[in-house]
């Protein structure tokens, strides 16, 4: 097991380094002089030179890359070109919204998908199965930002139960914060849950046909006991794989949904920074998101090696 984890860990480090290199090349080396971009084409050469030195952009490329990577490891991400404040602080402030939103929508996704998947598998080919599966087919086809707009139309415009956007913050009360994130989380989770429910159903149906399930039933275990004790654990491997892959979509979706609801999270920070040409903020935000996707996939790989020990033997 430890050899498998070590190998996967090395791949994780290599992938993170590769991602950082690509992001640095695209967002630092390719655009040319960031000082010129910030000051505009009409700025005097002396002013541009002064800003170049102030921002440390006169240093060689490799030095700037190594400096940035070392900064990533120590939490020093440099200062925003526009605000002059530490980038780490800007990101940390926005994460107080984005992380709870991601957790809320992932939890809703898991609850919705597992209940629908297990229900449909247990009622295979019955009316409930056909109905729920048809709904998931529609769910997969829905763009999450359109679904979000439909939710606003219903709950904010028509019923006026919830606000159409904005974030109440956590200072007032936790409940007010959660209420602001409710519609965004639902719009993110319903589409993801539709995909995961279909995977769960397939996986559970496949395990239900295994010999050990028949043996467990022959021993006298009830259908419900077999489902909860034996089937679910074995069906979790494909479900977790898809959940890992979905996490990348969830983060991408968060960026879009934050824009729909005007939420001051990481996604909005990225768009404001693009508009302000604040490339150092964009670079660190993109690295953070790509890093989270890579790390989540690593954790999923390691987790399912624990669930199914055959995987690590296969991968050695």
């Amino acid at each position, binding site marked *: 097991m430890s050899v498998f984890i070590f190998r996967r860990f090395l791949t994780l480090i290599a992938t993170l380094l590769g991602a950082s290199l690509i992001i640095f090349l695209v967002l630092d080396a390719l*655009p040319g002089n960031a000082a010129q971009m910030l000051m505009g084409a009409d700025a005097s050469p002396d002013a541009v030179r002064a800003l170049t030195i102030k921002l440390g952009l006169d240093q060689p490329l490799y030095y700037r890359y190594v400096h940035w990577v070392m900064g990533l490891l120590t939490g020093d991400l440099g200062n925003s070109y526009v605000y002059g404040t530490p980038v780490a602080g800007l990101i940390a402030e926005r994460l107080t919204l984005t992380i709870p939103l991601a957790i809320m929508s992932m939890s809703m996704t898991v609850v919705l998908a597992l209940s629908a998947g297990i229900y449909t598998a247990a009622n295979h080919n019955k009316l409930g199965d056909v109905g729920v599966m048809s709904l998931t087919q529609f769910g997969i086809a829905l*763009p999450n*930002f359109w679904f979000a*707009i439909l939710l606003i139309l219903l709950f904010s415009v028509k019923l006026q139960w919830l606000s159409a956007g904005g974030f109440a913050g956590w200072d007032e009360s936790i409940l007010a914060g959660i209420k602001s994130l409710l519609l965004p989380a639902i719009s993110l989770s319903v589409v993801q849950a539709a995909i995961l429910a279909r995977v769960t159903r*397939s996986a559970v149906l496949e395990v239900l046909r295994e010999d050990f399930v028949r043996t467990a039933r022959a021993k006298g275990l009830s259908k419900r006991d077999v489902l909860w004790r034996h089937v679910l654990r074995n069906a979790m491997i494909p479900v977790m794989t898809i959940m890992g892959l979905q996490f990348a979509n969830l983060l991408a979706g968060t960026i879009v949904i934050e824009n729909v609801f005007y939420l001051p999270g990481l996604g909005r920070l990225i768009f404001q920074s*693009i508009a302000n040409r604040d490339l150092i903020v964009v670079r660190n935000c*993109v690295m953070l998101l*790509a890093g989270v*996707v890579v790390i989540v996939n690593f954790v999923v790989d390691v987790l399912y090696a624990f669930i199914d020990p055959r995987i690590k033997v296969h991968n050695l």
Partner: protein
Amino acid sequence: MSTPISASVDVGAATVRPQVPTGFWRRALRHRSFVIGGTLSLMVLGAALLSLVWTPWSAYEIDVASKLRPPSAAHWLGTDVLGRDIVSLLLVGARSTIMVGIIAVGIGITFGVSLGLLAAARRGWTEELIMRMSDFTFAFPAVLSAIMLAAVAGPGMVTSITAIGIFQIPTLVRVTRGSANAIWAREFVLAARASGKGGFRITIEHVLPNVLPILIVQATIQFALAILAEAALSYLGLGTQPPQPSWGRMLNDAQTLLFQSPMLAVYPGAAIAVAVLGLNLLGDGLRDLLDPRLSRER
């Protein structure tokens, strides 16, 4: 690399060439997913083609005097905030969506299939390198790639096409390589090798035709994903730019008018959902029809 054996083997007879299965259309027309998906996809394609020759009104002409008109005989679905006819915008929007989808999936197929076939043909470190690169690309969903490109080159259709194209590559590499590996293990490929055919020729003559059905199914699904990604990028302002109409952009414009004209936000989203649903159902149908082994309990 194995040395070709100089024995005479009738490779032609052993070659398995994929053919349209007997009675394909007869079975296809009875397949519910295929028929519904095909009809919806043809409707969207028809709308895009129709917009090339006819739209009820110009989709680019601004007529502020007629802004936010309700549905009428003149404007079947009403007008937007600039007085443009919604039906015309939807028709031209279908064209933008399909164009971005075709080019982006084309990029994905060109690179994804080539790399997948190369990985399966060469194996060893080439395969390892390609697969690790493809894992690595998974870290960049289309929105992230588009953000990076937009930050450097500015937003636009080219940015969204490139970002969606890159996003398509890893999935197509994986699917192609997995299917191609299975074909390389078949007897008729062994016979082709024995007759002295090289890796490139075997790939083109034997492997590619046999993985084609799976690729067609996957391309349909990738097309649906490309439409969703294009709509999201246009909605965010990173994709298709005004005055070119696009469904995502229409949703963005409609969101500021939710209290005045809520239906403006319904039409473009419904168009996206119909296109994606159609392609997904078509993909499901094709999977069942072209390769029943792939059809699982869905």
